[in-house]
């Protein structure tokens, strides 16, 4: 194969002349360095391509909402929208609070007391997502005259989940209580900031 016309293939490059003391060929080094740099660059390019599908700045900007709760009478509930989903804000009556407190935690699928689900000093103000924890339907019971289920809280008509007066799951397929979002009251307790 002493071919002076030069049908060069990589194996025919004389390795002795190329090799340094520790046996690393200059060509191999350049090859590995170049391909590695290109590989790292290629993977880095994936980051923006994936990140662009995450919520954009305008969506994130709408991710907190303020609701005035001062006008809600005991026994009344209103609906607001938080992150494009319904939010239930209910002022419980004394009877509803007593009913919720009377249930032993050991009877609950998702044990939580009403205190744990409300803010200190605002035990009557129950704020939950209006999203059934089963498959995401909107439960009934927030509006006047709607069915409130066997436990007097909310009732999801899709698959028959019953929530009690503290919006805890009592019967039906839903795995957990209606979610309580992060929220804060303002100083005089009239406005909540959700999110």
């Amino acid at each position, binding site marked *: 194969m002493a*071919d002076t*016309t*030069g049908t*060069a293939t990589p194996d025919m490059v004389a390795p002795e002349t190329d090799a340094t003391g520790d046996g690393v060929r200059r060509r191999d080094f350049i090859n590995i360095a170049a391909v590695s740099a290109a590989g790292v660059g290629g993977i880095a390019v994936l980051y923006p391509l994936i*990140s662009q599908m995450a919520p*954009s700045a305008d969506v994130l900007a709408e991710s907190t909402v303020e609701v005035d709760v001062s006008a809600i009478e005991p026994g009344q509930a209103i609906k607001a929208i938080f992150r494009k989903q319904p939010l239930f804000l209910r002022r419980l009556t004394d009877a509803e609070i007593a009913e919720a407190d009377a249930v032993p935690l050991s009877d609950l699928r998702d044990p939580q007391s009403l205190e744990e689900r409300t803010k200190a000093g605002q035990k009557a103000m129950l704020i939950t997502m209006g999203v059934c924890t089963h498959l995401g339907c909107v439960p009934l019971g927030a509006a006047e005259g709607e069915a409130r289920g066997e436990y007097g809280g909310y009732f999801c008509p899709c698959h028959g989940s019953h929530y009690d007066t503290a919006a805890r799951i009592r019967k039906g397929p839903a795995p957990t209580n209606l979610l309580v979002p992060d929220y804060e009251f303002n100083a005089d307790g009239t406005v909540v900031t959700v999110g």
Partner: protein
Amino acid sequence: MSFPWANHYEPQNPLMKWVDEKLPLPRLVYNAVGAGYPVPRNLNYMYNFGVLAGFCLVLQIVTGVILAMHYAPNALVAFGSTEHIMRNVNWGWMLRYMHANGASFFFLVLYLHIFRGFYYGSYKAPREMIWLLGVVIFLLCMATAFMGYVLPWGQMSFWGAKVITGLFGAIPLVGEPLQIWLLGGYAPDNAALNRFFSLHFLLPFVIAGVVILHIWALHIPGSTNPTGVEVKKESDTVPFHPYYTAKDGFGLGVFLILYCLFVFFMPNALGHPDNYIEANPLSTPALIVPEWYFYPFYAILRAFTFDFILTAQLWGVLAMFSAILMWFFLPWLDRSPVRSASYRPLYRIFFWVLMVDMAALFYLGGAHAEEPYIMFSQLATAYYFLHFLVIVPIVSSIERPKPLPYSITEAVLGKDDDAQLGATVAAKA
């Protein structure tokens, strides 16, 4: 396909053997862009632009599909959704600048690829079909780029759509109804924007299909090379991988540096500020010009200012389309059997004159439609047609080419033992 001495795909790994029996896709890649595809050993960097054009197509499809996730093709919100991409979407500014500058770089690469073909006679037999498909790809790219430029629904988008569809309106008798049909109305509006979006999404995949045909046709005779002498034997070639994957890889690196320079440091340098003003059907921008890559043809369009049998408007439209359609006939206009301009002293001079003429048309297409630019446009346009229709045919018949090397091997090494009088590879075999 390919030469008889091409390396054969012989998978060693049992999994690769199993795949090869079921679906020989790795074999296809090996034979198309791997060690199984022998390529002339003397290709210079002008031969990088085919791979770079392919890279640009992928780049435009990837960034374009992403932009389409955030863009809304409705005249009421299109401009706003473009700004939404720029301001709200994560990395949206970068993806849009990548797409907009990607179009410019795509055309830059295409022009260099085409001019390489002019210089080295890549269009000549037996490669006519590769050339014809290439011109089809170029036309499809122009249509795609034009419709893409309409989508942001800025002032240049709107008036570009109006002017370019107006070209069809210049056709006698059917022109006006044709233009109204193209737009789906009397002026660009929601109907036009929606169909342009639909077609702008579709055409890149049509381009990809024609690119496959282009490469398929290329792999039958193989690449041309700077000598224009056909491959005769194994010593004329090297395997595509690793030789040209490495060379194309280096070219890609240089290309990306230039591209990133524009995307990150001067993303609007090639655009028009007027396109950041929302489309207004009641006000035309002061200077209405297309993107730079259409300048030469726009200069030809505007060069016709007087009626002669047909209207000036119609002459301009005909000349503009002919300027590209003429390329389809180039393999038959150039009768010289010598491919490479390196061995064609007379043609080489005229090639460079054409390049100067193209440069002039590039400049004039972006200039205001006033004197002296109009007169220079007319001269440059006249020369452009003169080159292809008169100079090329005449030069190819009167020119005395320089002696060609016996083989690529001889051109590279200075000698080829097979190059003896009366001796041919066939006789030795």
